[in-house]
């Protein structure tokens, strides 16, 4: 897994990148009550706001970690936003992206670097 400074994780699955938020992020957000997902077949650029997560406390965005196309979204989160707290790095993935070059992931933190980052 690779990690962004915005507390997202990325996992390669075939030629796709699966994106979610880290356990640290889910804990910080608190109980998630609403998730808004992007449309599939949308081209996004790194840093675009693609999802909205609302917890009992506040709203936050998930940014596209890479340039590419959103090809699949996890609609289970719409009906059961609490999954984000229950299983942030497993069942609660947000979307899958198709990107040109998987090598772009190399620029991101690995697990040890992310652990240092969140201290």
């Amino acid at each position: 897994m690779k990690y962004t400074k915005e507390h997202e994780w990325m996992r390669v699955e075939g030629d796709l990148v699966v994106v979610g938020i880290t356990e640290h992020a889910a804990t910080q957000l608190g109980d998630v009550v609403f998730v808004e997902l992007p449309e599939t077949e949308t081209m996004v650029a790194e840093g675009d706001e693609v999802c909205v997560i609302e917890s009992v406390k506040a709203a936050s965005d998930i940014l596209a970690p890479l340039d590419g196309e959103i090809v699949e979204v996890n609609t289970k989160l719409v009906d059961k936003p609490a999954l984000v707290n229950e299983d942030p790095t497993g069942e609660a993935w947000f979307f899958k992206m198709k990107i040109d070059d998987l090598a772009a992931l190399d620029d991101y933190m690995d697990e040890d670097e992310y652990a240092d980052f969140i201290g």
Partner: protein
Amino acid sequence: MTDHTTEGLKRLALHDLHVALGGKMVPFAGYEMPVQYPAGVMTEHLHTRAQAGLFDVSHMGQVILRPKGDMAALVAGFEALMPVDVAGLPEGRQRYGLFTNEQGGILDDLMFANPGDHLFVVVNAACKAADVAHMQAHLAEVAEVEHLTDRALLALQGPGAEAALSAWVPGVAEMRFMDVRVFDTLFGPMWVSRSGYTGEDGFEISVPEGGAEGLARTLLATPGVMPIGLGARDSLRLEAGLCLYGHDIDTGTSPVEAGLTWAIQKARRTGGARAGGFPGAERILRELAEGPERLRVGLAPQTRAPMREGTALFSPDGTPLGEVTSGGFGPSVQAPIAMGYVAASHAAPGTALEGEVRGKRMAVTVTPLPFQLTTYKR
């Protein structure tokens, strides 16, 4: 997700206890306050409605007004600051009040109690310096204004509150909603009111700072009592339809617009025994007679997306009507809920409106307040 700076913030007497309990401390009204404990806002909220929650509200201002001459002069002076019946408040009772300005706006909302030979006033933390100055300026001839800084204020709320507190202070079980009593306890002289700001039965307890930690630890050791942070305090009061000063009410809103007419007793209204004679009386009495131009209403978003403070509200034909002043998710009602101001023409329950969330207009329906039925012990 950066750490909030705590520089220049005041600490509560129970600061170390909050940290020891795992409280996440954030700045609020000049204090470091626990916004939540490890259980989280949702659990804390639901626990308060199911059993009992302990809140530290020591940041709020506690003020004693002691008569310089006779009590009647103090009562009359205090009554001249609010559209509220102070003279009619019996000994041993508490009432909700609001300081108004000359324009009929709200300077602060508060609770005041009549313990017999003085008045005890509890005001909002963010307003307390201004409130104390306001009272000193207007009551100098009739009262000593004592801002107490050596007492903590705890709230114990929920259906289990009476059992938990009466185990240590048996007399509280006899109290009814808005009763106030003084008890000598092992934690010091305790000033108890049967009230709160969650919509639940419960108590607010003023206790000397030296006894506060003992009382808090004792209550927390009682089965069913859990510490509750500001996050759940906010969602509980929103479900109960209660106003948060600085959000739902401020100097720009009148008590009538805010739907707080229940706090304006007959004696102060046109035709009453002591009608008018408070700041902003002209506007407030006119709005009582003719109706205000806009009203605070409950709002039920029709999708799952919460409508937060600042969300603009429109009629379905696109006419701007007002905005949301408090909004979020109601853990007990399991849905997004909000309050806000809309033109009086669109304030009837059932009216279909739209709220703009992230650039999109979403359906929202005007709904009666509260969202969650209150369970006060009348």
